[in-house]
């Protein structure tokens, strides 16, 4: 029987705003399947976002949804989780929102290891504002503000998350649609701050400036430039050149923030 997405959607809020060929819808469906796998109750789950195309996602989902200001999703979500640790908190957003204007909140959410899952849809561009380069735009690429080629080096978002202390970091792509739900489900089930970077495509503002003739070409690019971590173990450095790893990149058990704060409460009450 086909999976019933409708029970998690707000049908009267559709159609969504995303362009034809955009991968955000693929990610949204993966997220829904993951939520279903994990059995999260709608009224006990907050889905929090910032600003941008990807950040419109919560509006389509029938949960407690919080569409915050640009870059602030992780900080709002931290407040929600801290005040009600029993809620499931999932963050969604784009690369610019999460790692440029929201970069500080992002790294500190990683550092605290607060039990939330952050899905970053990395399409390497600011889509909603018309295609300006983001911290994830590769050097040399074209954007509306780098018509002569991007002079900036790009973040490796997964590495940034690992370096900042996230205890579960995975990467998938919009092409590998059937893996997205598995990665997100594993991230949700992990206790601690989990980050799932989904390499995504923006045909409208990135693809056409960077010589991708079609969405299919962009999807093929995601396929051809990525290698699962397992497969990469058997490959030589030459074979891996220019490839990006996908799958679960990092996993570690560490004290979780709201549980640690529960101990603070115990200590404070014992000292009273």
């Amino acid at each position, binding site marked *: 029987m086909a999976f019933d997405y409708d029970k998690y959607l707000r049908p009267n*809020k559709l159609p969504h705003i995303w362009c034809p060929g955009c991968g955000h819808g693929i990610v949204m469906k993966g997220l829904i399947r993951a939520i279903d796998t994990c059995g999260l109750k*709608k*009224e*006990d789950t*907050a889905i*929090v976002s910032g600003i941008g195309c990807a950040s419109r996602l*919560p*509006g389509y989902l*029938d*949960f*407690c*949804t*919080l*569409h*915050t*200001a640009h870059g*602030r999703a992780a*900080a*709002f*979500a*931290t*407040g*929600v*989780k*801290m*005040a*009600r640790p*029993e*809620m499931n908190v999932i963050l969604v957003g784009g690369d610019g929102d999460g790692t440029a204007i929201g970069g*500080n*909140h992002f*790294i*500190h959410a990683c550092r605290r290891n607060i039990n939330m899952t952050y899905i970053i849809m990395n399409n390497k561009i600011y889509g909603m504002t018309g295609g300006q380069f983001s911290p994830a735009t590769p050097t040399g690429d074209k954007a509306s503000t780098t018509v002569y080629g991007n002079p900036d080096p790009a973040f490796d978002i997964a590495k940034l998350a690992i370096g900042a202390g996230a205890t579960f970091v995975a990467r998938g792509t919009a092409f590998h649609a059937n893996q997205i739900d598995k990665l997100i489900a594993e991230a949700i089930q992990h206790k601690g701050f989990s980050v799932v970077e989904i390499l995504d495509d923006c045909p409208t503002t990135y693809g056409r400036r960077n010589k991708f003739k079609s969405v299919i070409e962009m999807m093929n690019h995601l396929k051809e430039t990525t290698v699962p971590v397992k497969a990469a173990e058997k490959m030589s450095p030459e074979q891996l050149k220019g490839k990006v790893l996908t799958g679960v990149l990092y996993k570690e058990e560490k004290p979780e923030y709201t549980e640690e*704060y529960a101990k*603070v*409460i115990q*200590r*404070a*009450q014992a000292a*009273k």
Partner: protein
Amino acid sequence: MAKKVAFLQGNEAAAQGALYAGCKFFAGYPITPSTEVAEVMSVELPKIGGKFIQMEDEIGAMAALLGGALTGAKALTSTSGPGLSLKQELIGYGCIAEIPCVIYNVMRGGPSTGMPTGPSQSDIMAAKWGTHGDHPAICLVPASVQEVYEETIRAFNLAEKYRTPVMIMPDEIVAHMRERIVFPEPGEIEVIDRTTPSVPPEQYKPYDTSFGDVPPLAAFGSGYKFHVTGLNKLPDGFPTTKAEYVQAEEERQVRKVEGNAADIMKWEEYLCEDAEIIVVAFGSTSRSARFAVDQARKQGIKAGLFRPITFWPFPEARLLELSKQVKAFISPEMNLGMCAGVIKGCIEGNAPILGIFRVDGEPINPDQIIDKMKEVK
């Protein structure tokens, strides 16, 4: 039984007032001269099962505050000038999404880093106009340690009652001054909680104006699912650009406060009945002014003090009335004339306003005010 008394600093009193009001959540970032509030809350909140979090920056603190408040918690943050500037983005979010919370801002010298340990009263316009767009503003300006305590409780009550961020802004002198405070018994001061929905979750709309200008607010995690956004929104919380909704909603958000100004405004009149010169002063400056008024009366000058305790909404109508009886107003303030400008806006040119404006980090002393009274013809 004798009431509990203590010798407390303004900032400590704010924290105690917040606890009396039922505050269970604090998110902040260290900044001079308000940090004592965060320090006390970090000690006291966990004792009652509340939550304290020190965030990565001022914006993050304001974001976490709103997130915590959306789960139903009464929430407090403390900051000062530069932090207030940073928080403005999300103060606007709190206004449009209608999330109750309290922002305690100690006024220090500015702009920018300014004079971190010096007193000032120069954030009062930022309290009203700091964030972009039209929005409601409530700002309280206490003048004593006891009043910081009581006005912090009132700040929470107003935030909950009108479902909006409320600012309480002592100047650095009031915030760091120590005085005896008498604690009220539990129940002695009214504590207001936000109205929660009476309808079942499937019928709930977070901005349903059929319940009046202040719609009930459900808590995340309480069985209600709904959408919150910083975009202009429909009664169900979802974004809209439909002109009729945007206009009506913005007007309602402002009307919530302006239309209830009589309930929110609070001021004190001291010897104003027959006053020919009225000193309009708030915060620590009002203490110098009262001292000056007493001295002036001894010298035969008919002086009075008008002291706003709520700065926003400003008591415009009353000042207009008083403007018809006085020879002049005097506006002593630790800024370059912000309050004088506000007074000017409401007295229709009926009386001159003589300013005493200090931004050198020193308080305005009573002698300066008396000297200014003597300039009045």
